[in-house]
């Protein structure tokens, strides 16, 4: 009697544990998020998602901002530019981070664009390549597949292998916009899913060319000059180097309260001057209009 009672208790407990485990995944977040803290100046939550290229910049912004405003919680997730624009359009997050301007499908969602940073791109090649400067025209030729051998642009007789990003990538969209200006990329290219993978592919494949966000380019590859201009932050500020996009933070309607404060903080001189250049981006404020 006693024994069977115990057994039953065990079974009930077991069932409870199993079902708790099964359902623990749901709803946990809401509980954590809804615990409000005492008010001082600003309070609330700021949620952002989107571009992974902007993540390294926004993480320090989040930390510094939360230190200044103790009652504000900032959540920043990745997911990609389109995820960000999608989620802010649906109202799932307060801020959608993106490397690209709004595509047409998003134009009617009332999103407001905040350009927070300039993201420069560089063209990189494998180290065995003898060419160190390409004209825009030559790069367009390579990207569209009209130029397929390095000897056509003054190098040795070696096939050109284009390694770059997927069709859904913000980086690719930026290059298509500012370099190709509407022409189509050749499909005859190897596609990698991140800046790091492109870098590795170009570094290990003879005759390879690709593009990455400037902060990613390291000693394993050769950075090309464009139209005789060597890449530098100053060259972009002076308007001599044209391959860059903007880091956008989109909000649905004009931002208010903590969301506005956070975007203002990211765009403030204090933050822009301290972090932006250190991370290889360029402050928007320095751009000549």
């Amino acid at each position, binding site marked *: *009697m006693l024994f*069977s*009672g115990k*057994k*039953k208790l065990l*079974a009930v407990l077991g*069932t409870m544990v199993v079902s708790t485990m*099964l359902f623990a995944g749901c709803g946990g977040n809401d509980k954590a998020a809804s615990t409000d803290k005492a008010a001082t100046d600003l309070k609330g939550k700021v949620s952002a998602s989107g571009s992974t290229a902007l993540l390294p910049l926004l993480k320090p912004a989040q930390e510094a901002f939360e230190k200044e405003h103790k009652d504000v919680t900032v959540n920043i997730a990745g*997911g*990609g*530019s*389109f*995820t960000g*624009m*999608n989620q802010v359009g649906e109202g799932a997050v307060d801020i959608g981070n993106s490397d690209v301007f709004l595509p047409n*499908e998003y134009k009617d969602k009332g999103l407001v664009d905040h350009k927070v940073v300039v993201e420069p791109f560089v063209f990189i090649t494998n180290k065995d390549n003898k060419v160190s400067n390409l004209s825009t025209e030559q790069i367009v030729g390579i990207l569209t597949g009209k130029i397929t051998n390095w000897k056509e642009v003054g190098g040795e007789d070696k*096939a050109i*292998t284009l390694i770059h990003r*997927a*069709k*859904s*990538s*913000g980086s690719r969209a930026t290059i298509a916009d500012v370099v190709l200006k509407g022409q*189509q990329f050749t*499909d*005859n*290219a*190897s*596609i*990698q*899913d991140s800046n790091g993978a492109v870098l590795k592919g170009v570094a*290990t*494949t*003879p*005759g*390879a060319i690709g593009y990455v966000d400037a902060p990613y380019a390291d000693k394993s590859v050769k950075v090309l000059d464009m139209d005789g201009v060597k890449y530098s932050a100053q060259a972009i500020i002076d308007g001599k180097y044209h391959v860059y996009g903007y880091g956008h933070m989109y909000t649905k309607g004009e931002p208010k309260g903590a969301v506005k404060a956070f975007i203002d903080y990211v765009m403030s001189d204090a933050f822009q001057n301290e972090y932006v250049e250190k991370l290889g981006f360029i402050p928007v404020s320095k751009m000549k209009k």
Partner: protein
Amino acid sequence: MEKDFIHQRKIIYDRYVRYLFIACAALMTIIIFSIIFFVGKQGLMTFTDVSPIEFFFTDKWNPLAHKYGALSFIAGSVVVTITAIIIGTPLGLLGAVFMSKIAPKRLRNIMRPAVDLYVAIPSVVYGYIGLTVLVPIIRSVFYVNMGYGVLVTSIILAVMILPTIISISEDALNGVPKPLEEASLALGATYWQTIYKVIVPSAAPGILTAIVLAMARAIGETMAVQMVIGNTPLMPKGLFTPTSTLTSNIVIEMGNTPFGSAWGNSLFLMALVLLIISLLMILAIRRIGSRRYS
């Protein structure tokens, strides 16, 4: 009275445990069906924007210009899988014959866990080895430009499917009744003749099951494939041309593709195609399996 009570409790207890099992079984069924339902619903929505003929029979993939031809991905998946089977089956089958019929018992006891170890290696490690070791080798041995492509992917997949082929074929070979083997030997056949004329044909359904299971594994493999195939959205034209598979294209594009757009839906449709291919393979295995005992 007291005894009756205990008996009653036991019956109730019994019933509740049964409910628990039913609940678990139901949950499993619900999960798999909701996955199929979700992928199917999302995938089939593609056809509101794209005609099935365009999706399945053209190879121009450029969603930004509203071109949704997925033939190159389907072809890539099929070609890579078949090439992997062509490389992997002889290796795996001979290995299974060796382990089942030839190897001394002690060696067999070492080899079995070694084969199982293959499964424990994460696919990203296979991909990484392919990328850093195999690709440069292929580049220098065959004088090709890039090294990425069908061949390197198939070699890696062949290695990844080996444990499936070996262990299931070995079970099938072990399951061949001993008297068959003995009769063959008694009739004067050599051991080798016995193996390839009697044992292997008798085990054929099991071996076929192994191959189909291996195909299912190969066609669904994502990470390792994505790292070495080159992900070029073009039809596979040879062993050394980079191409794309259904899985590699899904993983490359899903991160930045708006959910619910024609583009996002078409990725789900690719997942649905994979799901259907796998389903057909499982049905095929069931047919092969039932034939064995009839």
